[in-house]
Each structure stands twice: as structure tokens, then as C-alpha cells.
């Protein structure tokens, strides 16, 4: 295993120490239970956004804590959902009296732990709403299964709803907005290489030099199927088509196109994918009005990319453009 780490057990703690040292102007970091909050939390009268999940997806979620985005993030061990006590402490720390919105990616562990935390917080008299993100079209949706995973769309929800909360919208409005975005957004990802979970020390899956995984999640799980390598243009098509067909996105739709690196894929390749994605969407009469390109929701050092489409409207565009000041996403301020 080749990583710039010390003891695998200390990866998350030492990362948090780095974040604490690097961004005192943006965040405060707490340990045991671990959570990160806005430096100016609680913001009185503002709906507070709390998210969290396993570590290894940086900059998500800790890098998205700050003005215009999250009020708190709860980092679990690498790829493992955090625990209810972390979420409870974070929720209490950021509640500004207007209620707290839990943004939960749809994984069994995340859902169970966040549900318990929400109940505990309510018992302590805090108004909590939870929204589930499940945008991964690689997984068939069914009431008989765990359902779809929450992936790239999570980043967009945290940014847009964060702006709405900053604007003074109510907890109910923020929750509805988040659910609306979840309804209008879809994602799919692929991997060229596996990642290595620090405490495991070997690749989560073994991928031959001439093969790739299509339909992967963000936890180093293998994808839906494994096929021979293809050129970037073909791969982009393999991601765009299922996404567009699923909602479906229609001619005349205006979308935000998010091309994400799984961690090890450099920017130069993302632009090549972005180029083809725009070409494919335009051919379908779908207009890209906003974009995000870079490593925002990753799987450690995995090489690969994911594409997220979000159907936009005036309100969403305005909220997307609103100022945001976090370590991982910043503009307008």
C-alpha cells in the first residue's frame, strides 16, 4: 500500500488535525466524538445543515463546512458511517433555533445511524428533518432492496440547500428543496483502478490492466459490471446515456453538469470527459447552464470518474451562484 499516512488507525484523526490547523477561519474541529462545525456556529435563526458519512470522500463532507454550505460534518472511519453520538453532538452544536436538516446519503449504515441521532436530538427538543440522497442510477431502485446509493448529487444538494438556508428559508422549505433536487438529479460512476482502504492494505477489488468497472459506488465496491477498457468518449457515453434515460432528461432541459474525479484521475482527463458529455447532451437538446469539474466526492485514490446531472431552474441557478466559503468550494466571497 502506497500512501502518505502513518498508522492506518490514525488516518482520520490526523486528517482532522490537519483541517483544524489549516482552516481555523472556516471551521472548528471536535474529537471523540469527531465532528467539524462552522467557525461561527451556531448561526442564530438560520436552519443548520448537518451531513456526514465515512471518510475517504474528501473534500466531502468536512471540506464543505462553512458559510453558504454545511454547518457541520460528521466524519466516520474510512468508508464507515459515523455514529449517532457524533451526529447528535454536531446537531446540538449548530442548532440556531431554526431547526436542523440532516442530509443523509442512502446507505443502510448512514440511514440507521442518522435516524437514531435524529430521534435523540428530537428528544432533546431540537427540530430535525432528514433528507435522503439516492441518485445513483447504476443501482436499480426497488422497495425490496436497500435502494439507490447517494453519490455525486450530495455535493450539489449541500451547496444549493446551504445557500437556501443562508437566505433564511425555513427548515420545511430547505427539506423540500433538498428532496426536489434529489428528484431532479442523477449520477453514475466508473473506475479504472480500485482504491486501497488503509486498514485493509490491499485493493478493494482487483482490476486487470485492460479492464474497468462500470457503475461503481464511492466506497471501493466493485461496480455493476466489469468490461474491457474503452476510449474516454465511449465511457462518457456509457455514463451519460443511463443518466439521461433514467429521469429522463428531455430536450429543452437546462442542467448542471458535474464531472467528478474519484480521486486519482487528474483534471486533464476530466476536461476530456466534460467535452464529450456536453457534446452528447447538446445532441439530445439538453443545455448545460452550469458545471462543476474536479475531485469533490472521491474514493481515496481510486482512478475513475462520475457524472452527475441536475435539472436546473431559475431558483436553483440563483442558489448555485450564491456565495460559498468552504475549504472545498468557494466563490463570490
Amino acid at each position, binding site marked *: 500500500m502506497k500512501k502518505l499516512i502513518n498508522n492506518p488507525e490514525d488516518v482520520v484523526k490526523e486528517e482532522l488535525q490537519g483541517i483544524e490547523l489549516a482552516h481555523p477561519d472556516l471551521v472548528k474541529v471536535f474529537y471523540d*466524538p469527531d465532528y467539524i462545525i462552522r467557525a461561527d456556529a451556531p448561526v442564530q435563526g438560520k436552519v443548520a445543515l448537518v451531513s456526514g458519512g*465515512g471518510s475517504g470522500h474528501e473534500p466531502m463532507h468536512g471540506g464543505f463546512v462553512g458559510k453558504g454550505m454545511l454547518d457541520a460534518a460528521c466524519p*466516520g*472511519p*474510512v*468508508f*464507515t*458511517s*459515523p*455514529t*449517532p*453520538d457524533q451526529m447528535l453532538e454536531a446537531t446540538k452544536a449548530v442548532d440556531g433555533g431554526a431547526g436542523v436538516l440532516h442530509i443523509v446519503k442512502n*446507505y*443502510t*449504515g448512514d440511514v*440507521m*445511524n442518522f435516524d*437514531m441521532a435524529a430521534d435523540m436530538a428530537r428528544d432533546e427538543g431540537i427540530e430535525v428533518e432528514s433528507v435522503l440522497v439516492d441518485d445513483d442510477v*447504476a*443501482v*436499480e431502485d426497488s422497495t*425490496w*432492496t*436497500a435502494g439507490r*446509493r447517494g453519490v455525486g448529487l450530495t455535493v450539489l444538494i449541500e451547496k444549493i440547500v446551504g445557500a437556501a438556508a443562508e437566505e433564511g428559508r425555513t427548515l420545511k422549505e430547505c427539506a423540500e428543496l433538498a428532496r426536489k433536487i434529489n428528484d431532479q438529479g442523477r449520477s453514475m460512476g466508473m473506475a479504472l483502478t480500485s482504491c486501497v*482502504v488503509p*486498514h*485493509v492494505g490491499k485493493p*478493494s*477489488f482487483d482490476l486487470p490492466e485492460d479492464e474497468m468497472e462500470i457503475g461503481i*459506488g464511492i*466506497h*471501493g*465496491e*466493485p461496480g*455493476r*459490471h466489469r468490461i474491457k477498457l474503452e476510449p474516454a468518449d465511449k465511457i462518457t457515453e456509457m455514463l451519460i446515456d443511463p443518466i439521461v434515460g433514467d429521469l429522463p432528461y428531455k430536450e429543452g432541459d437546462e442542467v448542471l453538469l458535474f464531472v467528478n474525479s474519484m480521486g486519482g484521475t487528474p483534471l486533464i482527463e476530466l476536461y476530456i470527459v466534460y467535452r464529450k458529455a456536453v457534446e452528447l447532451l447538446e445532441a439530445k437538446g439538453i443545455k448545460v447552464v452550469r458545471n462543476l469539474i474536479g475531485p469533490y466526492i472521491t474514493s481515496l485514490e481510486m482512478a475513475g470518474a462520475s457524472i452527475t446531472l441536475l435539472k436546473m431552474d431559475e431558483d436553483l441557478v440563483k442558489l448555485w451562484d450564491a456565495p460559498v466559503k468552504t475549504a472545498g468550494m468557494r466563490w463570490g466571497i
Partner: protein
Amino acid sequence: MAITRDDVINWVKDYARVIEENHEMLTDLDREIGDADHGANMRRGFKTVLDKLPSLEDKDIGAILKGVGMTLLSKVGGAAGPLYSTIFIKAGTSIGPKMEMELEDWAKALEAATAGIATLGKALPNDKTMLDALYPAVDALKTSMQNGTSTGEALLNSAEAAHEGMLATIPLVARKGRASYLGERSAGHQDPGATSTYLLIKSAADAWSD
């Protein structure tokens, strides 16, 4: 023959040892169809349980099991955290403030724990989860009691049943948990959670039969 508070403590200690010995195997199973952390999660949890045990040793069985459950909830994370803490909390609640329990108490407790998991995880039999080890274990205990088998026998039967339930997860296509994301590709792999659950039942049998 009754199961005393010390027997319960010894069971928890023994299971912590079993996890320490098997965490890599459990993580490896999870690497195949999950996210390669089940062993690490269980290990983190039961290491802390061992630290906490001294503060529980003078309590009754119900309190001990609930204490273990609370510790797991705040240390394990993932799906296993809430699930395993539910097993211990439900079992503890079912047994209540006893200093020793009969086989029947244990059977009821395991049944309550299983029901708790089913409610929390909304999984059905054959969804390729822990439940596939738990249901057979509970059944085995009940039938053993109906046949008037000895406590030791009954516990070994439940462990045997859990073992078969664990193996039966191999051909299944997962419908719950991370493995469900793999669809058909999840078939042919043994469910990590069912495996750690079998080890839990087995550990009770080892600790209590003789």
C-alpha cells in the same frame, strides 16, 4: 442449568477475542461484496467493550447487555453498529434485571433481538444478511427446548443452525445492505454480517455449554 452473570461476561470477552482473531477474515468477506470494513468495525467496537466491561461487571445481566449495546452504538458505525447494538440492547431488555437466566430467557432474548434487527433493517429471510444466521439459531433453540434437550445441547444446536444459515447466504443475491448494489455479482459470496453473527452464537455456546 442456569447461565450466570459471570457466564454472560465471559461470553462477551470470548466474542471479543473471536473478533480479534477473525477481523481480517470478516473484512475480507466484506471486501468481496461490500466496502471492506466489517471486521474493522466489529473490532473497534469490541475493543472498547472490553475497556468498558469492568464498569459493568457488578451489574445485572440486562444492564450488562444494554451497556455493551450502547458502547457498540457509539463505536462501531456503519450498518453493523446499530444492528449489533440492537441485538444486545433488545436481548438485555428482554432478560431484564436478572443475576442469572435460564435457557428459555436466552431463547426469548435472542428472539427479541432478531425481531429488533428485522424491524430496524427491514430485511426478510434470504436477503443475505445477519438475519439468515439469527432466524435458524432461534428456531433451533426453541425446538431443542420442546424436545427437552439440555442447555448445552440446545446452545450447540443453535450454533450449528446459525452456521448452516451463514453458509446458506453464499448462493443468495443480496437484497439489503451494500452487497445489494452488486446485484447478481453478490451471489457466490458469504455474507460478512451473517458470519460475525454465527461467531456470536457459537461463542455463547462455547462459553455456556459444559
